[in-house]
């Protein structure tokens, strides 16, 4: 198995595991962490392609994803804190009245 295929398979596996975690776990913070894992999988695929092509585009996109991840966590954490303050729990099933 070539290096590229190995790394891309790892990236796919990390993304899928993160998605499974978002679906399956019921702790809000753990769901957020699984989303970070999905972003890491995407980053790995971008770095692999950039390495294979020898172009800097993939690395630039990785940096933009770093910024997006920081912004995402900066906005998600206050929302989680607000929800926990209102519901007094981190259990996802306490928030079902948000369905609208």
């Amino acid at each position, binding site marked *: 198995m070539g290096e590229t*295929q*190995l790394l891309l398979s790892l990236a796919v596996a990390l993304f899928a595991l993160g998605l499974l975690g978002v679906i*399956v776990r019921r702790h809000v913070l753990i769901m957020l962490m699984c989303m970070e894992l999905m972003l890491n999988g995407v980053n790995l695929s971008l770095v692999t392609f950039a390495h294979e092509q020898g172009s800097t585009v993939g690395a630039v996109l990785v940096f933009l994803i770093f910024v997006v991840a920081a912004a995402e966590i900066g906005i998600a*954490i206050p929302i989680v804190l607000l929800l926990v303050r209102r519901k007094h729990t981190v*259990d996802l099933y306490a928030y079902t009245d948000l369905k609208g």
Partner: protein
Amino acid sequence: MIESVLLHLETLLLYIFGIGALTSAVLMLVLRQPMRVALALISAMVFLGGIYGLLGVHFIAAFQVLIYVGAVMVFMVYVIMLLDVRDPSCSQRFSRLVVPGILAFLLFLGVLGYGVWRDLPPLSGASPGAAFGLQQFAASFLQEYWLHFELTSVLLVVAVVAAIAVIQVSRRDHG
């Protein structure tokens, strides 16, 4: 024996880091305490940083550790400390969607893995493109992609404003 190990040291390390990252990702799904999940995620990120270093993009490896482990995960660990982790109301680990979730996971993995496997251009035997250095990256970053760089600063400002707005809502509700 030792010579052959040294000859394939890079591939060996790549496999070790890959297996480590995969194991940490699986551990994230089964561990119960949020703090342990955070530690598993941190180890996965450090393993990925090692892979980036092996691929020759050392500055991305450094920023992976600095930004992800140093900023994002420290923030996350801080919030875990702030919330009571021994919250008894969240005793169940998995939601009701375990079985459909795992089925969807297997389907997704199969489709995506098959797509990656089939559509990957055949390895032409050509060596991977020459690794680019920090200088080349910085020049292309600030000459070709400066607009995107500026747009991310707008995104960060929006995130800060939104976070402050959320805090204002919280303050208004609780006097």
